[in-house]
């Protein structure tokens, strides 16, 4: 090859790769450290190739260890002086580490640390290419730290291993790699709906916060005592110990479709919200109980007007109890638990609903009796 042919080939190589790099720059605005280094080398080579055709003489010196002239000088300038830096993008820190704090927690505003077993690990994979980060050990029962380079972006998916009985509440959820903290929810009752999600009550009543706190304590007390309603020796009921009340700390501001999605995504047994209405004869709390597909023949939501008075306390408590037991029966049915378990929940719900006065009580009794028939409960034992 003659000298002029070499020059043309080098120039063509340079032009082609400069074009390729322009395309790559548009396609990968946030390259990984490895991509950036590769692009820089090729760009430097391409620039050197183009420089072959540029007349004049150029000398370049880096400290005392590099001296270059002509095309080689252009290569050295492009490679060592990082022209991409001139755009303002902080690419020189591309390989510097950055940390993402991961805090696993139970669902709800309380963000309780679930105390995972010591064997638990988090596996993280990039959504884009399926590449995996090294597995992370869990410290302090629920925390881990992922070290990434500052320029790391994209989405990641998580998986928990060795954490039984805990699982991720939303195993398909994705997390941004360019943030500094992730807070995935975990549950020890996967695929079960055992959480009573309590949205803050609103309204103009004088003692709204105290009434709300009382409702919350009633619900918690009921949730905690559900296991005790059934034989302690029958361990099929042990999962009831996981029924819990989760305050969200927010008011409910969702459409019916969004509430259903929320119910599905959060392992909810019931979603509760309420409005306090001031009336001349005393404040009334209007509670709405959403049970999603577990509502069966009950209206969705089940609305109960509960007067805030000591004489109505029992009714208030009973409505929540009966609704919770009814939802538990439907939930047990949906998971195809044994027939006698479903009937035992409905039987207890029947006991309680039977003594609730008013339309809500009637609606509950009708729904419970319909469910008992569907569950195959005997209607008349011969004695």
């Amino acid at each position, binding site marked *: 090859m003659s000298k002029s042919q070499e020059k043309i080939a080098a120039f063509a190589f340079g032009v082609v790769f400069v074009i390729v790099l322009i395309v790559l720059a548009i396609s990968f605005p946030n390259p990984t450290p490895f991509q950036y280094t590769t692009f820089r080398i090729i760009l430097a080579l391409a620039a050197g190739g183009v420089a072959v055709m540029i007349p004049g003489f150029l000398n370049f010196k880096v400290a005392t260890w590099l001296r270059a002239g002509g095309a080689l000088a252009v290569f050295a300038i492009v490679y060592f002086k990082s022209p991409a830096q001139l755009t303002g993008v902080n690419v020189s820190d591309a390989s510097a580490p950055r940390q993402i704090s991961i805090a696993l927690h139970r669902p709800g505003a309380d963000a309780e640390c679930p105390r995972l077993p010591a064997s638990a690990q988090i596996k993280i994979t990039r959504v884009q290419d399926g590449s995996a980060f090294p597995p992370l050990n869990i410290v302090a029962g629920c925390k881990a730290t992922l070290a990434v380079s500052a320029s790391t972006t994209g989405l990641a998916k998580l998986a928990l291993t060795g954490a039984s009985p805990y699982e991720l509440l939303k195993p398909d959820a994705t997390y941004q790699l360019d943030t500094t903290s992730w807070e995935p929810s975990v549950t020890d009752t996967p695929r079960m709906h055992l959480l009573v999600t309590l949205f803050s009550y609103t309204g103009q009543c004088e003692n709204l916060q*105290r009434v709300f*706190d*009382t409702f919350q*304590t009633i619900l918690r*007390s009921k949730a*905690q*005592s559900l296991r*005790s*309603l059934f034989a*302690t020796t*029958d361990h*099929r009921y042990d999962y009831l110990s996981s029924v819990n009340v989760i305050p969200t700390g927010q008011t409910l501001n969702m459409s019916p479709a969004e509430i259903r999605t929320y119910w599905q995504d959060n392992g909810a047994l019931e979603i509760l919200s309420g409005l306090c209405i001031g009336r001349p004869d*005393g404040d009334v709390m209007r509670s709405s109980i959403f049970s999603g597909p577990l509502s069966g023949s009950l209206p969705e939501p089940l609305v109960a007007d509960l*007067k*805030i*008075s*000591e*004489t*109505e*306390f*029992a009714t208030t*408590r009973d409505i929540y109890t009966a609704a919770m037991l009814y939802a538990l029966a439907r939930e047990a049915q949906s998971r195809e638990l*044994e*027939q*006698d378990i479903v*009937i*035992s929940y*409905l*039987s*207890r719900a*029947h*006991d*309680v609903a*039977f*003594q609730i006065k008013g339309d809500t009580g009637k609606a509950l009794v009708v729904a419970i009796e319909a469910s*008992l028939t569907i*569950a*195959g*409960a*005997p*209607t*008349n*034992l*011969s*004695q």
Partner: protein
Amino acid sequence: MTRMFLGRFKFLSLLLLLFNPIAAFAFDPRQVVISVAPFAAGTVGNEEVGKRTSTILNLQIWQTLRIPTTPEGRNTKGVVTWDFDSRPPTTFLEAERYAAAQTDQEPAIVLWGRAWHYGSGVIVESFLSIRPGDVSKPYGSDLLSAKLSDGTTFSVGIPRRQIDFEPIILKSEIMPELSEPAGLKLYKSSKGDETEGFVGDYFKALEQGPDSAKVVLPNGTQGWIRLPSLSRERSEVVDFSGGIVRILRSDWSGATQLFQRVATNAHAPTAVKVDSYLYLAIAAANSGGDPAPWLRKAYDLNPYSKTILEYLCMDQLRQLAQRTSDKQDQEARIRALTELVRQGKPLYSANDPWFVSLKKYLQLAD
């Protein structure tokens, strides 16, 4: 026993001991101890209300205790204790821990709960734990038994061990001056005004009247305490708790009195009424009566209960065990029992040990 006399700072006990002398306070299996735990404050500021509630219930239950009329009951004693130093239990698990910590008089029964400010008043939620004790043979598991001709024995016992009652609205006029039982005045007579100080941490009843009780203190001093408003304001919580103590002391007629009050109390929850009917059936069966009417009432209230089904079967088994009827009658009972087990199948688990045994006895296939 010694710890009881250490005073209110350690462990306080209120005792009805109508048969044995005070000196016989060591653990005795024939002693039924019920402890009224300090009631928790449902909301901040209710601590004193919780304590007062506990005192009222304690004394009201104490008033229900009596000497059983049955020979087996006469050898038993009933004890009510209180402990205001412990942390109030708020769950059945905590109630169990509370009971296990009462080393002097470990109670078989614990009444606990919490008091709330709600609306313009105070309401009280009460819960009762009937502890099983020995797992292999739970306490009170054979209140009704039948030994059949082939030697097979069936029994039923306490229908439910963890009971929650309907909330009580606390009336402020009940004993406003009293914060704990030790503060009761000791009167020289049942009617006069002359007093001899206070009863203190430990006292036993010699005689229970409607509004007063004759008591004796550890130093031998005798006198009267007056509880007029308590006896008129007795809730189903007290009647039910007192009824359980009477059942466990084989006081069948006494238990019948109290459980009938619960069953006819409009305020009592359905589940508590159902339990009361079952206890009435136990009392009837053990005193030579017919339990069937009580079982029918329980069934009418809740036709979907496995426990009621067990009791219905038990009634048939008891009659089979009596062997007084002719062969035809026995066969009819077997058929009825078989039908009950078949129809009630959706109510019990295929592995339920009680029904597995019964099906084996009846030679029924799954």
